[in-house]
């Protein structure tokens, strides 16, 4: 189906829509009222069919909006369905989770932060708010108070470790439960998996995230467009080139800015270096998780020169802060080109060795093949992206489907494997490293001279979407501007947010020993997944710098009073 046929197909539900806009060839905005949302979503997901990306909840002035973002990967078209909920007192909408399990988490999130009810949702527990957060307080509404002012004045706690809701329980509680988390050697970050086991077999899994919220979407609304790029590079340490790039592309689309050619080369090279180091990092961690510490140490040693290169280009090993609206901040000096090429040669040799060692190891075959299979159907239903999808035979890659930066001009292949097991995901990642090396070589050789940025003065009102293939999958950013100097809404969807829920499809029925590597196989990134909590979960932290300073001074004064000493004055010194 090409773009024209897609447009015609969308017209089949014209009578349910209130508006259809097409600002660019591959950007379509549809609008409809809340009562038609279910039917339109079902049509888009099942009949067209489109890939579900994420939903965005917005508190507009006179209504609530829920934006359902879909992608059509054959033409790289992003389709956004805007649903208006006019009833501000009791905002209600039909849940799409019954036929689209990938939407389960985002509906819970929107319920948490905006208070929109989703009818017929299978499991409406809190996802990101603490369990003792008061009912009826919705932090992303425009009238919400700052986190320091919790309405009931009570201290908040961390999320509890009770993950199983009665509605979800498929086995009686008498079954033994193995807790993986909130802190566990398997995980570098806090998250909680509750495995119900029968002997060595896992019969149910439940997850609790949100131990690590920072409220980045809310903070983003209070920063200027230029500052947000730095903020989103802190969404995740490893994807710290992908997030800003996706954001910047969304703003550039909104403002109609075209960055100069050299900037596109720089962006491509940095993003591919990031992919290489992230994939090698995963290989090492996966080795560690199955008790293969030698692979862990070797892989991480091979990763070092890549980080060094990134440091030489941007000044940082992570959190590069290198893209801005209209181009890049730091150029790749021409003197560095031979060094990059040389390092790529060295890396290719090392990775060749490592790949052979990993792919030919019979014990690894026994350990990873047929383990944690995510079928193609499940991959589509849970809307997974990146190597997780490509390992299940869903050959999607934003770099090819909706080319950004330089990817349209480079010669490379999308790696995909049909099996869906952990081994397939490992193969995808290992082979992708070679594709990245290939791309970097081409880009470095062809990089033209010229400026690396154009000046951008005003950001007009409007909206834009940007998506980038991060190492873990598609990173999606949606930005809406009202013509001021800050975004009015900035939605971030990191790949792990859709990849992690797919554990329900891939882990049940597996051995415990296999579940741990399956959990690791999507390369979950929890700081990415949890970028959104707007609220301060542990109320003793107060976001406001002034307030912190005041607290600190008060405490000093208190201690002085207790000790009965006077403060040291300037005169005494």
């Amino acid at each position: 189906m090409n773009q024209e046929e897609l447009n015609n197909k969308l017209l089949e539900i014209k009578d349910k829509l209130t508006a259809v806009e097409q600002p660019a060839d591959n950007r379509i905005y549809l609008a409809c009222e809340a009562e038609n949302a279910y039917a339109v979503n079902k049509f888009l997901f099942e009949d067209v069919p489109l890939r579900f990306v994420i939903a965005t909840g917005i508190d507009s002035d006179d209504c609530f909006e829920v934006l359902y973002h879909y992608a059509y990967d054959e033409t790289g078209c992003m389709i956004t369905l805007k649903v208006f909920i006019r009833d501000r007192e009791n905002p209600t909408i039909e849940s799409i989770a019954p036929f689209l399990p990938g939407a389960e988490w985002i509906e819970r999130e929107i319920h948490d932060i905006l208070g929109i009810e989703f009818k017929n949702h299978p499991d409406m527990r809190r996802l990101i708010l603490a369990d003792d957060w008061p009912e009826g307080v919705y932090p992303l509404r425009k009238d919400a108070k700052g986190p320091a002012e919790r309405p009931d004045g009570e201290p908040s706690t961390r999320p509890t470790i009770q993950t199983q809701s009665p509605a979800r329980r498929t086995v009686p509680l008498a079954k033994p439960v193995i807790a993986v988390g909130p802190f566990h050697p398997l995980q570098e970050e806090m998250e909680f998996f509750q495995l119900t086991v029968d002997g060595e077999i896992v019969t149910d899994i439940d997850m609790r995230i949100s131990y690590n919220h920072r409220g980045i979407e809310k903070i983003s609304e209070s920063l200027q467009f230029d500052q947000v790029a730095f903020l989103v590079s802190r969404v995740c340490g490893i994807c710290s080139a992908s997030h800003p790039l996706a954001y910047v592309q969304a703003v550039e689309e909104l403002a109609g800015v075209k960055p100069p050619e050299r900037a596109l080369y720089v962006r491509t090279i940095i993003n591919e270096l990031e992919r290489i180091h992230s994939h090698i990092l995963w290989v090492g961690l996966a080795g560690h998780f199955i008790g293969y510490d030698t692979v862990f140490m070797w892989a991480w040693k091979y990763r070092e020169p890549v980080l060094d290169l990134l440091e030489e280009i941007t000044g940082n090993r992570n959190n590069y802060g290198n893209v801005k609206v209209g181009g890049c901040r730091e150029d790749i000096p021409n003197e560095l080109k031979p060094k990059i090429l040389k390092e790529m040669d060295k890396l290719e040799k090392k990775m060749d060795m490592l790949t052979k060692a990993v792919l030919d190891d019979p014990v690894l075959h026994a350990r990873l093949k047929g383990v944690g299979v995510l079928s193609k159907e499940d991959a589509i239903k849970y809307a997974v992206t990146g190597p997780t999808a490509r390992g299940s035979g869903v050959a999607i890659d934003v770099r090819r489907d909706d080319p950004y930066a330089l990817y349209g001009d480079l010669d490379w292949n999308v790696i995909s494997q049909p099996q869906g097991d952990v081994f397939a995901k490992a193969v995808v990642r290992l082979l992708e490293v070679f594709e990245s090396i290939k791309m970097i070589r081409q880009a470095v050789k062809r990089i033209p001279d010229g400026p690396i940025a154009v000046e951008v003065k005003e950001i007009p009102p409007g909206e834009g979407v940007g998506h980038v293939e991060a190492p873990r999958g598609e990173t999606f950013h949606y930005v809406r501007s009202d013509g001021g100097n800050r975004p009015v809404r900035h939605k971030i969807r990191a790949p792990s947010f859709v990849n992690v829920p797919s554990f329900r499809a891939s882990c049940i029925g597996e051995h415990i020993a296999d579940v741990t590597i399956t959990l690791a196989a999507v390369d979950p990134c929890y700081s990415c997944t949890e970028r959104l909590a707007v609220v301060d979960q542990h109320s003793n932290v107060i976001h406001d710098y002034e307030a912190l300073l005041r607290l600190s001074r008060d405490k000093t004064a208190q201690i002085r009073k207790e000790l009965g000493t006077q403060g040291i004055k300037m005169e005494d010194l």
Partner: protein
Amino acid sequence: MSVPLNILFWIVVIPGTVVFGLVASWIVRKVSALVQWRVGPPLCQPLYDIMKLMGKEILVPQEAQQTVFMAAPLVGLAGILLFSIMLWRITITETAFVGDIIVAIYLMALPSLALILGSSASASPHAALGTSREMKLVMSYELPLVLAFIVVIIKTGGQLNLAAIAQQTPALSISGMLAFLVALLCVQAKLGFVPFDIAEAETELGSGVLMEYSGALLAVWKLIQAVMLVALPLFLVTVFLGGFRPNLWAGLGKLVGILVLLILIKNTNPRVRIDQAMKFFWFYCGIALAAAIILAIIGNYCGVGWL
């Protein structure tokens, strides 16, 4: 052995075994580090670890069966020390006082049994899973281990006495070599080394069987593991490689050689699943040993030494 020497032996043997064990565990860590391009710890690091653990608080889970939980590591330590005293006695004086191979097999199983007891008394689901894995693992490797010793007994003409077995070198034949290799893998499993660290499986069970142990009790488990690092290779040397003949250095060389072999296996393999381990020991090792036994019997019957 003269009387003063005898007294000296009894004074030195237990602390000596522990010191040897700590050095062995340093070797394990250092060689692993070198394989992985790391620097590795200083020589005294295992000792510091034990000392530090000794000074820490012992936490006993509320629902644990306290007596068993506390006694298990001590039983394990007693068993493994007794085992190593026996071996040293044979190695140094070449007279076995109580030691025949059957006793040794029983004593060798004691630390694993103590581990199973202790962890199942600790009332933790992770430890329970670890216990069930450890039990399955013990059942998997004990059978091939005993079969391997049967090969030795056949090769040495029905000898059960360890000192007498140590006078011969069964590994210098096809069946003996097969038995030695299988026994080496069983020792790998007994030590809880990768690929058979299934019961501890840090990244799955968060150290599994040892999860609830802390402080001095954990230090005792670490000591048991350290002593096993010397005792089990020493046992292999005694049974298969002719003991400490022709001299002390050759003996130590064999010991360290086996240790390094174990470490290399440890560092070049991922962890297997428990069902894979069982299949490996029963099926593959079982077949290999059945062949070895037949070869050994034929060799004995026809008087062909190298079979």
